[in-house]
């Protein structure tokens, strides 16, 4: 065939490198509704669920049993399950019905009912739903802080800069798992230098992650994964009861935690049982609810290529975020993994979460260039900062971050690198040179950093754990080195762990350690003129609008 010139050019556009596939229900390649999904149903006898979504209690697998025993508000269940799903869906976008009132209905739904309600909504309606059903009044954001060689000094500098930019949470992970204690320590010091009150985690295997938290080297945890089918769950090396117990282990040490799940994971693991992604995700959300965790990170996450390959994929992703909110859980809404070659599609990936506003719009946003993101690259990274600021300014809508000045970044990066230098010295870890401090101050990528002795660092990281080093030792090292403000910030973080206010739903801290959660700063959206509005928040609006790129009309040369 002779090629038509326009079609030839279109074929070369970045979007056409993205892979999309036809629905294939038997293998779970269907976003919102599979012919194999069960119909919603419930039977309650003497306060016990004896049938759920077409299955009798004796046929329940462990996930069904756990959800039926703990996840559903049984008192309202029969009434809600008998309601038309469109009626519940309409409540989500009716500004006259409060967030609290809607929860009375939505927390009594079975997984199939939750799925059915979401299926009534188009994308715009889901945005409206998120506006009201998000737990915290004010949206926030989370960043990834990593680099390809686990350089601790650069981690501290990047953590400090991200904190200054407004991220309320920071998540690190490792290139090499044995570096975990150093990564946790570096981000602890960096985040509290950048802005006291920022929370941070180190995403590693379940047991190590808990250990780091027990030592006070992290302040929250998130990578506690759950799956929607029994075989996937078992392959993930847990059961609902072990995960529920783990949730309580974290709370027993005063550590905030949320679960993680996301559509497409069961497909990737090979056990979707022919069900739709949304139905399986509804089961994950109820697993989180049943475990009594305060929140969930979902929205396909690292599996994003699966739902976005099939029709309605990104509608499903916002749908599962919204469903999480409808079960009264904190929502950290992904947008954390690169999936598309198209800038336009990449932007639309987060538009629903951004315009609706969620507890954490991204989980997380790359606070380093993508090649240094050891989570395999985020949908947004450092080079998108100005695009995001312009979007916030254009729409008057919070992304949870704001513009900073170059000299502020330089100062805070240097301060964090120096603070870590002091900590390493105080704890007897391999020394950080002045040259490294200076490099981290001005660095963009890990290649900008002088090489460190990786073997010595790894040994010292293990030794640090063997010696039982805790946050108290870190505070002492900082105070002994006269870095008292950072020492004070880390001490305040430990005190907050003793009190536990930030274990409540959707909790973050401001720079004065005032906690903002669903308990004291709950979402009060009731239609136009209510709820959080960036353009009505003078301090934050100024940070978004008064940016270096702005030209002052007074300085126009007419």
């Amino acid at each position, binding site marked *: 065939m002779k090629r038509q010139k326009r079609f030839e050019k279109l074929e070369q556009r970045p979007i056409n490198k993205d892979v999309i596939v036809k629905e294939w229900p038997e293998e779970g390649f269907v976003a919102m509704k599979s012919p194999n999904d069960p119909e919603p149903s419930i039977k309650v006898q003497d306060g016990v669920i004896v049938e759920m979504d077409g299955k009798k209690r004796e046929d329940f697998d462990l996930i069904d049993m756990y959800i039926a025993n703990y996840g559903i508000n049984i008192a309202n269940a029969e009434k809600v399950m008998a309601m038309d799903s469109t009626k519940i869906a309409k409540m989500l976008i009716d500004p006259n019905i409060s967030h609290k009132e809607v929860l009375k209905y939505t927390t009594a739904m079975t997984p199939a009912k939750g799925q059915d309600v979401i299926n009534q909504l188009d994308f715009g309606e889901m945005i409206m739903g998120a506006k009201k059903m998000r737990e915290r009044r004010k949206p926030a954001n989370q960043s990834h802080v990593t680099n390809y060689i686990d350089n601790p000094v650069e981690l501290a500098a990047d953590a400090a800069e991200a904190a200054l930019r407004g991220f309320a949470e920071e998540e690190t992970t490792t290139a090499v798992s044995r570096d975990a204690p150093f990564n946790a320590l570096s981000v602890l010091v960096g985040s509290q230098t950048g802005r006291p009150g920022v929370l941070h985690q180190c995403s590693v295997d379940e047991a190590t992650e808990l250990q780091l938290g027990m030592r006070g080297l992290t302040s929250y945890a998130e990578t506690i994964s759950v799956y929607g089918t029994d075989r996937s769950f078992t392959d993930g090396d847990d059961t609902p009861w*072990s995960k529920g117990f783990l949730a309580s282990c974290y709370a027993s040490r005063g550590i905030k935690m949320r679960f993680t799940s996301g559509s497409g994971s069961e497909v990737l693991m090979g056990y979707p049982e022919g069900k739709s992604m949304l139905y399986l995700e509804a089961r994950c959300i109820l697993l989180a609810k049943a475990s009594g965790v305060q929140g969930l990170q979902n929205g396909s996450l690292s599996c994003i290529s699966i739902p976005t390959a099939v029709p309605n994929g990104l509608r499903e992703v916002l749908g599962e975020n919204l469903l999480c909110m409808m079960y009264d859980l904190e929502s950290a809404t992904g947008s954390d993994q690169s999936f598309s070659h198209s800038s336009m599609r990449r932007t639309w990936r987060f538009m629903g979460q951004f315009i609706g506003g969620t507890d954490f719009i991204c989980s997380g946003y790359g606070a380093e260039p993508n090649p240094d993101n050891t989570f395999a690259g985020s949908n947004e990274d450092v080079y998108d900062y100005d695009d995001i600021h312009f979007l916030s300014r254009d729409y008057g809508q919070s992304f949870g971050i704001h513009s900073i000045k170059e000299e502020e970044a330089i100062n805070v990066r240097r301060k964090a690198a120096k603070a870590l230098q002091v900590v390493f010295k105080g704890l007897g870890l391999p020394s950080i040179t002045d040259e490294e401090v200076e490099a981290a101050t001005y660095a963009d990528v890990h290649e900008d950093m002088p090489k460190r002795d990786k073997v010595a660092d790894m040994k010292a990281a293990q030794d640090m754990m063997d010696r039982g080093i805790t946050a108290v030792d870190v505070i002492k090292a900082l105070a002994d080195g006269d870095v008292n403000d950072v020492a004070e910030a880390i001490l305040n973080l430990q005190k907050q762990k003793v009190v536990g206010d930030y274990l409540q739903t959707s909790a973050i801290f401001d720079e004065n350690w005032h906690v903002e959660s669903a308990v004291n700063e709950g979402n009060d959206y009731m239609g136009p003129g209510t709820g959080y509005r960036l353009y009505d928040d003078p301090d934050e609006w100024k940070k978004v609008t008064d940016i270096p790129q702005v030209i002052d009309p007074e300085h126009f040369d007419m």
Partner: protein
Amino acid sequence: MSDINDLVKSILKQVNQSDGVTTTTDSHSEKQYGVEDYPLYEQHRDIIKTPSGKSLGEVTLDDIKNNRIDRKDLRITAEALKMQGDVAGDAGRKTLQMNFDRAAELTKIPDDRLLEMYNALRPYRSTKDELLEIAEELRSKYDATICANWFEEAAKYYESRKKLKGDK
């Protein structure tokens, strides 16, 4: 039906616990805290203590510099978790409260033992008897009734749903 009876029994136990119907004389478990008491850090800092009984005002940079703070002392106590459980329950979040109630029981268990207990609950790790032994340990050694029930419930379902050691 024994399945249902056990469940009702365990739920009733948890409800009784979360209502503060306990026999301890601890003054904190008598008062019910609520949404209006939150944040506890701002409103009740005076009554919250570290595990060794220090008030938060007694924990300063100076104390840390002079080694007057044990490195493991900056931890939440069962009492503070019960208070947060009250707040969560008052805010309408019963499952979160139940989690805090379980957590309150776990505060006394050493880190390493707690990790072992978690690992024992993972699939195919334990026999039914091993899970029941941990339940007994939780009950007798740590007075952790809710968590003991949790392990017993897991043992029962792991047996019928084939997640015990050797089932793989």
